[in-house]
């Protein structure tokens, strides 16, 4: 955990008081809605279909139990008793009243939580691997760098009015859980031949109506130079990114129009011209931030405790353990994923009661720490293996032990037309119906890893382009239709999916998905061949034939 000091606390309190003044000026009419819109967006406040929506940052997906309890409090006191975890390590509250927002922010600020730059055309919440610091084989904890970048990008005087939003993600593991290739800047921590730590820098990834996978702009930037290099990218983008058309304003379009070589050259020239502007991170500066991350005092525990051996006969426990429990870098410990995808439920939602209960379980079993991943699930990052059976029982009672992590019902979905003013179609009911169709966990196990992503419009908040199966809601003559793609992925081999056939109406989506899955089961080489690998091997055509033959 990163511990805020007096300076961090002062800054977020100052931001709360500024926002309180802005809300006051809006309510008195001193600020027009047009002016206020930009200011509220910079603080995570959207105007949705029914009410204001409030998006709060969970930097690099790390939360303390105290902070999670405060989310429960906000959900209860200012909202309707629940919150929604998003695909970018944020939590959203959907029913907040404008006049109460400053109080909600002040309550969150007390536990070091803010909503700065969770929307608007600025540098968004920095995201990272939800297993940072505990995943085996990691280069080093990427959250040290995430925090350095979080501070650097917070209320940046030059880059708070960019052409469009700007997202940075960091990974330090071989397997990319942070989806860095679909970010404006993706950073992959690695060591060069001299053993020096630095970053492969990727730029220009993003989904939306013109999706691009990020390209490498520089294979190695030493850690000490990462802030100045990011500054150079941002300065080129701030000046040359398009502002004439909102749909062409992301950095991906600038990179595409200039070409990666020309863009890289511009950035390099700017970087060289900058010289020493106080952004170089020397050893002391990095250690200063590192020193404020605390780590659990792990015990020396056996790899296979008796409790685990005894629980092995419990089929339900074993199924959950195989699905939701992952290897930890410390012997005797595990990382436990908490599925927020119950059968029939909206993906990513958690009630205030669940949040409080998870906070208690984190205190009891995970050194008071919780993680949030872009798949819209939670994780307890430091669970002793001997505690797994007891934890399973507790999670099961809370409805948080659905054994479907990474399976067909672990669906990523945007809020869609049920909440969002941009949406063309509903997302949540599609997800709910699919979880019912695949409710049998044995079937889901048989299918294996399969990511379904649903977006209710072309803005692609549900990342449909990079779902193994992607579902995009569109509007046709006043009706909801859905385009379906297959073969996308968001990891280190990120790729955009391919359209499988004509769009289908709302009522047929679940049938088509079932047919796609059946086609895969018939076509796969062997049970271990994942859906996405079968699509890669055979292409879309054989699956299209089977699915659309009778349509």
């Amino acid at each position, binding site marked *: 955990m990163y511990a805020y000091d007096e300076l961090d606390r002062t800054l977020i309190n100052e931001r709360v008081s500024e926002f309180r003044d802005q809300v006051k000026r809006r309510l008195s009419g001193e600020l027009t809605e047009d002016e206020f819109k930009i200011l509220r967006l910079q603080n995570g406040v959207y105007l949705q279909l029914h009410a204001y929506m409030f998006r709060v940052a969970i930097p690099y997906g790390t939360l303390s139990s105290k902070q999670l309890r405060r989310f429960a409090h906000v959900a209860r006191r200012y909202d309707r008793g629940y919150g929604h975890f998003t695909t970018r390590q944020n939590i959203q509250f959907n029913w907040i009243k404008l006049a109460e927002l400053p109080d909600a922010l002040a309550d969150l600020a007390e536990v070091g939580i803010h909503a700065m730059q969770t929307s608007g055309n600025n540098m968004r919440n920095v995201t990272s691997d939800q297993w940072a610091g505990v995943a085996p084989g990691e280069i080093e904890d990427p959250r040290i760098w995430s925090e350095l970048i979080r501070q650097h990008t*917070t209320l940046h005087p030059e880059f708070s009015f960019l052409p469009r939003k700007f997202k940075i993600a960091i990974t330090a593991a071989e397997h990319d859980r942070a989806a860095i290739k679909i970010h404006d800047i993706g950073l992959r921590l690695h060591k060069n031949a001299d053993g020096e730590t630095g970053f492969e820098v990727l730029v220009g990834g993003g989904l939306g109506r013109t999706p691009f996978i990020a390209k490498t702009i520089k294979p190695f930037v030493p850690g000490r130079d990462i802030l100045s290099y990011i500054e150079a990218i941002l300065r080129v983008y701030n000046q040359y990114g398009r502002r004439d058309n909102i749909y062409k304003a992301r950095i991906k379009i600038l990179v595409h129009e200039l070409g990666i070589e020309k863009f890289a050259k511009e950035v390099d020239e700017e970087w060289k011209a900058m010289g020493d502007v106080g952004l170089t991170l020397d050893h002391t500066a990095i250690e200063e931030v590192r020193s404020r991350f605390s780590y659990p005092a792990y015990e020396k525990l056996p790899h296979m405790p008796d409790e685990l051996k005894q629980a092995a006969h419990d089929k339900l426990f074993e199924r959950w353990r195989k699905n939701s429990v992952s290897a930890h870098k410390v012997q005797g410990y595990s990382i436990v994923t908490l599925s927020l995808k119950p059968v029939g439920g909206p993906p990513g939602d958690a009630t205030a009661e669940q949040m409080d209960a998870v906070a208690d379980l984190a205190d009891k079993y995970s050194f008071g720490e919780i993680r949030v991943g872009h798949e819209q699930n939670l994780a307890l990052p430091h669970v002793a293996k001997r505690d797994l059976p007891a934890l399973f029982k507790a999670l099961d009672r809370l409805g948080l032990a659905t054994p479907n992590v990474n399976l067909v019902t672990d669906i990523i979905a945007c809020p869609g037309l049920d909440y969002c003013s941009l949406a063309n179609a509903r997302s949540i009911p599609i997800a709910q119906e699919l979880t019912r169709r695949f409710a049998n966990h044995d079937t889901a196990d048989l299918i294996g890893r399969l990511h379904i992503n649903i977006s209710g419009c072309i803005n692609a908040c549900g990342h449909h382009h990079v779902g193994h199966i992607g579902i995009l809601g569109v509007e046709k003559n006043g009706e909801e239709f859905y385009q379906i793609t297959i073969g996308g992925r968001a990891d280190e081999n990120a790729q955009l999916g391919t359209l499988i056939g004509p769009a289908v109406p709302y009522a047929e989506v679940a049938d088509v998905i079932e047919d796609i899955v059946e086609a895969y089961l018939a076509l796969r080489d062997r049970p271990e061949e994942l859906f996405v690998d079968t699509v890669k091997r055979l292409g879309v055509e054989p699956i299209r034939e089977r699915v659309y033959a009778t349509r």
Partner: protein
Amino acid sequence: MPLVKQGRITTDLFVHVADGAELPGDGAVLVTAERFLADPEALLRRSGKVGVIWPNSRNLEELVPHLDRLASVALVFPTFRDGRAYSQARLLRERYGYDGELRATGQILRDQFVFMTRAGFDAFEVKKDADADAFAATMKRYSVFYQPTGDGRVTALNRRMQLRHSESAGQ
């Protein structure tokens, strides 16, 4: 439209002269980039001071050779959403060493004062009277800054390291 300079509302000594309009015989003028670049020498020979209104889409390198003879550079915010002039301001101050008046013009609200000051602006053509009146109070809103810019404010990271240094020196 009130002008805020050196932290308070002041009389604007500069006259905005539209393209094609006749220049006053003396007194300070602000002219467009086109007008200035068409004949810089003629303008600079006048007895009054000269400032240039520089669009946010124009390359600063055309302006750089003249910087030491200009009394003001006005950078433009066509809407407060458009942040290009923040980069121009920092480049003028931090890279090209410009130390004359750096003026923000366009849609200027109080909510930008801190950012603008940090980027190097020291004069503000403020849209609303209430915002101009609130300048001093607004500038006191923040006491912690994460990024180094040319304004010399000490960053949070440097304050922490100073603190650490003084703590270890005291032991």
